[in-house]
């Protein structure tokens, strides 16, 4: 194993700014997300995931690239489409799939569900299902970090659609005025639920074209290239840690599937889908690694190991009991209970 790693490291030495090990980690994380999201989809079709799911396959590079640039004590704030960011911060596939399936082994033991993945231990401060709300919450966490004098940053991930909601505007302004260490990351996948963002937005780039309104630079990047994302993330986080205030990053990307559940996404033109599928972040990244001399076997090993972990997680989740019914009546309050009277 370790000889292979060294070979890869040499092969990538040309791109000195991203160490080879980091590149392999970026690949691994993208792959983890991809197969875990596919599995979530299969489980949904098998009626083992109830309610809804919002998958992020196609958007792996954004999650992998940003998370790779974060310190363990940094904060992530995600949306209902948050599995990728949760996994990227190091949460296991078992607690994620378990939560989707409403099992005791789930990240929140079934109380939150797929839209609310939270793992404070990993810095995943929650996934929020009301569009745009978490931008202000992330700003608050950044304020707290600033106040406490830590070097923590907060990152809020959100969709193109979220740029037209009031909370976006208020959060950006407050963060800019208070120079908060927060990074606002727009994953512009061109669609809201089913409606194209361009049909309801006054500017072409829903996030970046608004940056100037908060005194921020305009940043639009290729969200399907994990290296580009990672480099950008390093920069904006460094700026935030240095007291330079917030950034707003628009990542151009595409979801491979529908908005949620079993949405076949028929509203998207065939050519558009095909063009974007050609830019599959994982296919591209794999090719880049191979071109840089990483051995096919090494990537295959990563993939095989990931699939093994995934299959194990799936079986474990399937075998996990539903949560105890009493848990529905716990944790309303800090005392662990739900009592509102004596």
């Amino acid at each position, binding site marked *: 194993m370790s000889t292979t790693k060294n070979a890869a490291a040499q092969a990538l030495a040309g791109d000195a700014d991203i160490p080879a090990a980091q590149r392999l980690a970026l690949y691994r994380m993208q792959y983890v997300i991809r197969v875990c999201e596919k599995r979530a989809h299969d489980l949904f079709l098998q009626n083992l995931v109830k309610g809804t799911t919002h998958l992020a396959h196609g958007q792996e590079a954004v999650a992998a690239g940003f998370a790779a640039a974060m310190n363990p004590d940094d904060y992530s704030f995600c949306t209902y489409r948050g599995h990728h960011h949760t996994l990227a911060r190091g949460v296991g596939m078992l607690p994620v799939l378990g939560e989707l399936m*409403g099992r005791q082994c789930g990240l929140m033991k079934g109380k939150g569900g797929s839209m609310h993945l939270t793992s404070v231990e990993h810095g995943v401060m929650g996934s929020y299902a009301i569009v745009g709300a978490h931008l202000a919450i992330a700003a608050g966490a950044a304020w707290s970090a600033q106040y406490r004098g830590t070097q923590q940053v907060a990152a809020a991930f959100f969709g193109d659609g979220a740029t037209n909601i009031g909370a976006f505007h208020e959060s950006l302004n407050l963060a800019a005025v208070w120079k908060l260490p927060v990074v606002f990351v727009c994953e512009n996948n061109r669609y809201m639920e089913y409606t194209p963002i361009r049909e309801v937005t006054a500017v072409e780039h829903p996030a970046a074209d608004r940056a100037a309104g908060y005194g921020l630079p305009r940043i639009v990047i290729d969200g399907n290239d994990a290296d580009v994302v990672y480099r950008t993330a390093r920069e904006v986080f460094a700026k935030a840690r240095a007291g330079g205030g917030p950034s707003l990053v628009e990542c151009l990307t595409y979801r491979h599937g529908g908005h949620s559940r079993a949405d076949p996404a028929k509203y998207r033109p065939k050519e558009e889908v095909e063009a974007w599928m050609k830019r599959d972040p994982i296919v591209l990244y794999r090719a880049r690694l191979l071109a840089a001399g990483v051995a096919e076997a090494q990537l295959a090993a990563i993939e095989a190991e990931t699939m093994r972990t995934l299959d194990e997680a799936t079986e474990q989740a399937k075998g996990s009991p539903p949560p105890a019914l009493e848990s529905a009546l716990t944790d309303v309050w800090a005392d662990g209970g739900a009592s509102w009277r004596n």
Partner: protein
Amino acid sequence: MAQLSYRDAVAAGIAQEMRRDQRVVLFGEDIAAAEGVFKTTVGLLEEFGPRRVRDTPISELAILGAAMGAAMTGLKPVAEIMFSDFLACCWDYVANQIAKTRYMSDGQVSIPLVIRTANGAGVRFGAQHSQSVENWAMAVPGLKVVAPSNAADAKGLLAAAIRDPDPVLFFEHKGLLAGKAEVPDGEHVEPLGQAKVLRRGNDVTLIALAAMVPCALKAADALVREGIAATVVDVRCLVPLDARTLLAEAARTGRVFTVEENPRLCGWGAEIASIIHEECFSALKQPVVRITTPHVPLPAADRLEDSVLPSPERVASEVRRALGK
């Protein structure tokens, strides 16, 4: 009479009114080309075109603000707020602007609009997509509040809401959308403000709304097999409230149970129970029993969600307990 699903009945009600009145316009997120995330607006863009049926940005403030401004100036907007939980994102428009402007203007301004929204639990969407918030609306003077329990009412009450000169919050229950029922052919309009007695029994009165109506009916079915005869009343409109019917049915049995989906505190059940206590105290054999979801956010997992929502079993067992059986 045709069999229609609740979701199709919603679309049919809107279509009926759009055909009748050019001033009726429909808008919201994903309601036009995508025909609604709950498929409650199927066919409307096709029939009425993009001038009258419009997709909006994710801008709940702008949606309700625009609805209000349009209503004040001659249109009859039907605005969709996708999930009723998101009313919290535009509550200022609901509670402070739309509800109060007629009054503040000394009657100069009319605001004939309908806010449609998917309400309620049972579909495992978790705490931010499952709430029953009709009590939020009931607490605000100036809003009419409607929550149909079946397809026929979905069409007829929605038609009446659109014709109504006042702002109406129209709660479509997610758990009922697929259910089919006979819906009268031709023009169908059900007046607002009339509760409906769905079945009569002399032992107890169950007062329910929206998804709790089928729940109460199932409980009544179970109880009748045990020799307990239940009256079931569908409240249908919280405002205007058909207090007369509720009071009459309460007095007839003297044993009243409200069945609410919202969390415990300050629900419509507390209001209706208070009215019944105030106005037919002496006819009551027992205090009104409120059957509600406990005062907790809604959990996502199916088993957990089912465990907190009122169920026919829980309703039946509350009735048995009250009767000492």
